[in-house]
Structures are given as structure tokens and as C-alpha cells.
């Protein structure tokens, strides 16, 4: 062996239950190659469940954030406008008014 490579690696396993669903992380397996990892994933996570697809990714190929780096996730100012709940009753009211004003404009236009 020319370079120091571990014989076994941890692979993270993602299973897709049906064609319409996303691949969901279910756990990890220890395996000697990506092919081995797929076999092990099939046996260890699909003994009872059925699925249409499995992904395995070597754990060390997963790039991750640092739990200590809280600023990475900082959200200090109001981001209400990005949330569905940010659009409440008063928004609906504003929309109705706006649409109505457009209609009124149209009427005026026709009159002319």
C-alpha cells in the first residue's frame, strides 16, 4: 500500500422511500468501499422497510459548520417578511385595497 488509507470508512446513509420523497439521512455504516457501504446500508436500514434509492457519502467528505460558530447562524434583525406567518390579515386587507384601486383606475379609463 503506497499511502496510509484506512481500510474502513464511515459512510452516511440517505434513503429515498418513494420517487416523490427526498433522500433522508437514516444513520451511518462502517464499510470498506462505497459498494460495500451500499450493501451494508441496504441490510442494516432496509431489513423491514422498502425503498427506491440509497445514497452513501463518506463521512469525511461531508463539509460541516462548527457548533461553536454561533454567529454563522445569527439572525438579529426582523426577518418576519420571509415567513409565511409574516403575511397576516392586514396584508390581505392591503391587497384587496390595491386591487380595488386598480379596478377603479380601469373604470376611469373606460369612461374617458
Amino acid at each position, binding site marked *: 500500500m503506497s499511502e496510509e488509507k484506512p*481500510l474502513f470508512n464511515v459512510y452516511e446513509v440517505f434513503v429515498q422511500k418513494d420517487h416523490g420523497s427526498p433522500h433522508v439521512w437514516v444513520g451511518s455504516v*462502517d464499510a470498506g*468501499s462505497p*459498494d*460495500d457501504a451500499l*450493501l*451494508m446500508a441496504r*441490510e*442494516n436500514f432496509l*431489513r423491514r422497510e422498502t425503498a427506491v434509492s440509497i445514497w452513501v457519502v463518506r463521512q469525511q467528505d461531508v463539509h460541516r459548520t462548527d457548533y461553536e460558530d454561533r454567529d454563522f447562524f445569527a439572525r438579529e434583525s426582523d426577518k418576519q417578511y420571509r415567513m409565511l406567518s409574516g403575511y397576516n390579515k392586514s396584508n390581505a386587507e392591503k391587497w384587496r385595497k390595491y386591487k380595488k384601486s386598480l379596478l377603479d383606475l380601469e373604470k376611469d379609463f373606460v369612461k374617458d
Partner: protein
Amino acid sequence: MNEQILVELLYQLADDELVAGHRASEWLGLAPHFEEDIAFASIAQDEIGHATAFYRLLEELGQGKADDLAFLRPAAERRNAVLLERPNGAGTYLENPAFDWGFTVARALVYDLFDTVRLEVLTRSAYEPLAQLAAKIRREERYHLLHHTTWFKRLATGTDESRRRLQAGLERVWPEVGGLFALGFVPTGDIFPATITDLVDRWTAELSPLFDSVGLAWPSGQIMRPPVGLDGRRGQHASDLEELLATMSEVYRTAPGAAW
């Protein structure tokens, strides 16, 4: 259709799968790593499931209860190939098991490949229930074969030690491979539409490219006949089978009438 021939063939199929499945089950808790332990145990369950299906066909033909056929028949009536009854290595499951993974992978690969070839033949059998069952089992065996092929390549190309152990396993397996292809009292015909040469040729055509791909030389020695005096298809067995049957049927024999 000659029912005697059909019954002989079904015993070969059922006994092969049962004995192979039992030996595989003896890796439980001992396989090289946790993930493989579960994978190999699942395969063992599958093989025993296939055996059950074949014993049920025998039950339908009036041979007796499937469980009795599996657990109570003496070694001399068994039709499995001798290769499959060999222990997994030194020791026993309960006492100092020093089992041999190289041998196990080598045996599992040569057997499951043979089984795949045989199932393809069976899908063309004139006995319709058998042809249908063979088609069903074949789908599951495809995955088994992939599993064993992956391990074969892994050991062959892993480390010097893994390659050496695989080669040692192949050397142990090879002299008894011929016992798989033997047909015993089953002649080539509409129930089993293939000859021994057909089986050997198809098996070799699949396996030899695999040996080439990992740079392993094709082992020497004939594979057309079982070893002299050890033709399992004719009820000739090693003492290993007696020991296997004693262990396997121990619980069943304690209370033969009980519903488990």
C-alpha cells in the same frame, strides 16, 4: 411427468438451501464487523426461506410435513452437496469458533452463482409450480450474488492477508465444487432441462471473468464430478452433516408436536 424425478430434484434444492442457510446462520455474532453480521444473517434467513418454499412443494406432493422433512430426515436421505455441509472453520459455534471468512466468502460465491444458474434452468421446468417459485427466488438471489461478489473483490484486492486468506478458502472449496453440479438421480429432461456440462459452462463463463478482474488464477483440478464417495446428491455425506443435523434439529426433536 415422472413424480419420482421431481421429488428427487426438490430434495436437492431444499436440502442445499437449508444446509447453506444453517451454516450462514452460524456466523451470527461472529462476522467480521457489525454491519456484515446483520447482512449475512439476513442472507441466512433468505436461504432458509427458500428451503421452506421447496419443502412445501414436497409437502404438496405428499412427502410429509415440511418441518419434518427439514428436521427429521437422517443424513443418508439428504441430497445437499457435501461442500455446503462443511463447517465454517475450526471449532463449533458454541465452542471456540475460529471460523474462516475467506472460506465462507469463497463457498458462498461459488454456491450462489451455481444456484443462480440452476434457478434459471428451473424457470424453464415443465413443473409449473417449481418454475414459478424459481422465478421468484431468482430475484432475491441476485442481491445475494452481488453481496458475495463484492466481498470476493474486496478480499482479493484488499491487503496481502485478505488475498492470501481468500486464496486459501478457494483451495479448500475447489475439490468439492463438482458436488454442486452433480444431479444424482435426476436425469436431464423436461423437469430439469439442462445437463451437467451446461451448468458447468454457464457457471465458468460467469466466474472466470471475475477471477481475471482481480488477477486470480483459475484454480486447477476438475469440477465436473463430486469427490469419490462424497456425492451428496446420492446421500453420501461427511460426518459434518450428522453434526449439523444434530445441532439444527435439537430443539425440534425435544417436542416434535409443539407449535413454535
